[in-house]
């Protein structure tokens, strides 16, 4: 298990736990959600996710480090 900020571009992941932030929940980033890393940004930038192959969400570094994920195939 790693945190989201450690994930590499192109990796497919399953969300294990997310911090208790209303907007994350409402956007559909929840426990068990499948995501893939679309882009990463240097110098402390966000992680861009494709969530459930349906939509894209950018998550800032300081939240990404609090989201734990597991690699899937």
């Amino acid at each position, binding site marked *: 298990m790693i945190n989201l900020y450690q994930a590499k571009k192109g990796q497919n992941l399953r969300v294990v736990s997310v911090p208790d932030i209303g907007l994350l929940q409402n956007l559909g980033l929840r426990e068990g959600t499948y995501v893939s890393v679309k882009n990463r940004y240097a*110098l402390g*930038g966000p992680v861009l996710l494709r969530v459930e*192959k*349906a939509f894209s*969400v*950018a998550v*800032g570094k300081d939240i990404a480090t609090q989201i734990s994920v597991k690699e899937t195939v």
Partner: protein
Amino acid sequence: MSDRILLMGNPNVGKSIFFTELTGIHAMSSNYTGTTVNFMEGRITIGGKEYTLIDVPGTYSMTPTSEAEAVAQKFMQEGAAAVICVLDASNLERNLKLAMELTRYNIPMIFTLNMMDVAARHGVRIDIRQLEEQLKAPVVKSVAVKGKGLKELINRLEILLKSATCGRKCEGCPWAAAKEICGRVSTQKSTSPGFLDKLGDAMLNPFPGLPIAILVLALLVAVVVFGGRGLRVPLIMLTDNLIIPAIRNAFEFVFALFASEPISYSFLYYDNGFQTGTRLFYGNMWQTVGNYAAVGGIADILINILIGEYGIFVISFQWIIALILPYVFAFYVGITFLEDSGYLPRISVLFDNIMRKLGVQGGSLIHVFLALGCAVPAILGSRTATTKKERLMIVTIVCFTIPCISQIGALIALMSVFSWWMTPAMVLFTMLMFATVALIASKLIKGSVDPLILEVPNLLLPNPKTYLRKLAIRMKHFLKDAEFPMLIAVFIAAVLAGTGIISAIAQNAAVQSIVSGWLGMPEEAVVALILGIVRREMSVAPLLILNLTYLQAFVAGVVSLLYLPCLSVFGIVAKEFKIKTAVLIFVGTIVAAIFIGGMVNQIARLFM
């Protein structure tokens, strides 16, 4: 609220396009009582009965995380004749989750599956009949950007309104219900992405996304500078040949009712016109009045002050319509396109790292772009900031370093007289100030800024009708908000000059040492500093009549950029925050403007 129909849905699902297509031109933007949240409402006739259609702010959930989402919830609680729930077919599960929450309010619902084309491109297929079965409510498919599916929506809405029946009601977990329905009605296979998807993705990749972003922003600047300049030509003709003669005729008609003798035209327009104007502005009006009183009657004097060559009405209309409006229009043409195409969130993502280092986050950039139009909606919009510090940071940055488009127009008009490099130099200087102010403010303001969480919508070509309507509304607001304060500002100018207050201030030793000594400006520039308090472009416009040197023009630009935003901004900051904050910004901007403007002047002089 039995005559209301609510348009509900996630953000960026195309609700506004439905709204534009379904209502006539008589839609208006309203404010939800007690909040800063705006929504659109318009009339719609269905089955011979009139309803009010409301474009409810987009929301992800009925457990709100922002003020706009709270308003969406309130609309549902107030009730309606029906809800049109717009679903993004390319993102069905999350959209259905909101739909499930909406079913709990016992309002008849009709669903429209929008963005069917995007879904098809992504390889998503949805069984509409099955979806209707699951929701036990009518479902219509549509591609709103292309106007498809609207007729069927109206027809079935009419049937729904007659029967007033509610469909499936979700009592359990909305996520679970959405997942279950989604699994039954949709299938996905892999497809190769289309052009817009590829472009949208490329714009998000640091390379080529960053070069594209710089190109897009440079293009926006070019649209404003060259588009604005081009538009000025016909607008100057319009103002000089149509608007001003019309105003003059109207006034002369009124005056003719009272005057016993006909007004002497040659005297009005040709005799000494320029000197009159300059005196009205910078000199002693009583002396001018005295001169005229010797020749003509009191009506002549009044007419000259109101509609003479530099009369209050002439100057204010010339400045608003022939000087500022072209740039405002060009800016909104560009920024509205960027907004409606879904490009702006991409900028937020690309520059989040830099913004984070400056003590804010990428999402704040959207407020900064809005502030380039006008600071007032940007400051109101900053209510969506999740922490107090972020909001104060946005307001500080906007008040100190972001010029509004009216001011930009006046600045470009001033700079373009000199040399091509003046405008880019001003842009670079603004960016430098932006970074400096952000860094200082993030040190001074206590608290923390929440990291970015931002959905990035699909890139799309804006719907022409929605785009044009938004543009029209913005221009209407500008004209409504600008002309009256401008008239007041010019009037104050005339009074200040006329009563000798300006010359008294300008000849004050302390003021002289600041304006002429420290800033190196001609003493008449005091007018700009005084009027700049009322409206931002007035910190530049009066300088256009003076013959400035290169350096003076640049220093004037620097001072105007950093100088106090207009009175409306001061008012809104005082209302939204404490009076103390507003006063701090008031004093801080004036001190910073004069200090840094003077530094530029003094340093440049060392090399000249």
